[in-house]
């Protein structure tokens, strides 16, 4: 089971986990393979893997390797 870093926190994910799994784990929302919330709302989240943005269309194909570094970001109040 790979240990990855999500937003600087070490997290253990299931073997073969993809970016979809990492996002579901962090947001606590159930996601479809396309990375859409099953509750029908908008997710409003983006992911960078080792400093590269991974478009949502590639989330389910991006298997996370040991020690992968992910940034999962969203909109907050500001400006």
């Amino acid at each position, binding site marked *: 089971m790979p240990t990855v870093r999500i*937003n*600087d926190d070490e997290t253990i994910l299931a073997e073969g986990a993809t970016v979809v799994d990492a996002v579901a784990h*962090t*947001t*606590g929302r159930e996601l479809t393979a396309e990375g859409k919330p099953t509750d029908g*709302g*908008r*997710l*409003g*989240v*983006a*992911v*960078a893997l080792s*400093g590269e*943005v991974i*478009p*949502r269309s590639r989330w389910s194909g991006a298997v996370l390797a040991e020690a992968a570094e992910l*940034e*999962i*970001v*969203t*909109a*907050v*109040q*500001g*400006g």
Partner: protein
Amino acid sequence: MHIPPLQIGEYTLQSRLIMGTGGITDLSALEKALARSGTTLTTVAMRRYSPETKTSVFTMLEGLRIDVLPNTAGCYTVKDTVLTAELAREALETDLIKVEVIADEHTLLPDVIETLEATEQLADRGFTPLVYTSDDPAAAVRLEQAGAAAVMPLGSPIGTGLGILNPHNIELICSRAKVPVVLDAGIGAASQAALAIELGCDAVLVASAVTRAQDPTAMAEAMRLAVEAGFHSARAGRIPKREHALASSPTEGRISPLEDLT
């Protein structure tokens, strides 16, 4: 008179009052203020997802049918700015980006050199950059040439409420710009928002002035009215400034002859 929408690149801005969402902890108070302001475009920042952000500002803006303008606040370099913009586009599904590259955390003044490079790269990547900058007319021209869809000069440093410290520069920027000019940062009172529009700005961005006011909802309404008043005032054709007084009552028919007065 109806105030026409403003075209920023491909985006049509309905209300000329752009709002910010920072500086207030009470989300329901923020929601009321945003609704009262009549704004149709409001800034958000991009940060790491935290489980505490359950009631997200993004969901709230969606409910109010207000478009989001993600910013790159907190970025100091071109690299961070471009990555933040890419993340914002992916998360929020918008090409709009408020480019904000600051020089240091004490003054929060824009680093115009980094800003220029970031603007060029973001325009190349298909973004619609609204670019926060200093009140330097030369910099505004360069940013426009680099691909800024709108230039956003500061009136005074972020959060100071000092208003427009150099109205001459703002007027000069507006008179030469071919893209919209949005006065960003430094506004503290409604009169200053009106002044920005009178000086030639196409829109105004207000955050702290509303969110940190004692009564944010009342200030939001004041800002909405000020932007409207400024728009009408700017188009009404103000009188020229004069060195000396000019009476508006007739001189003929006065009860005392002129000689007696001199």
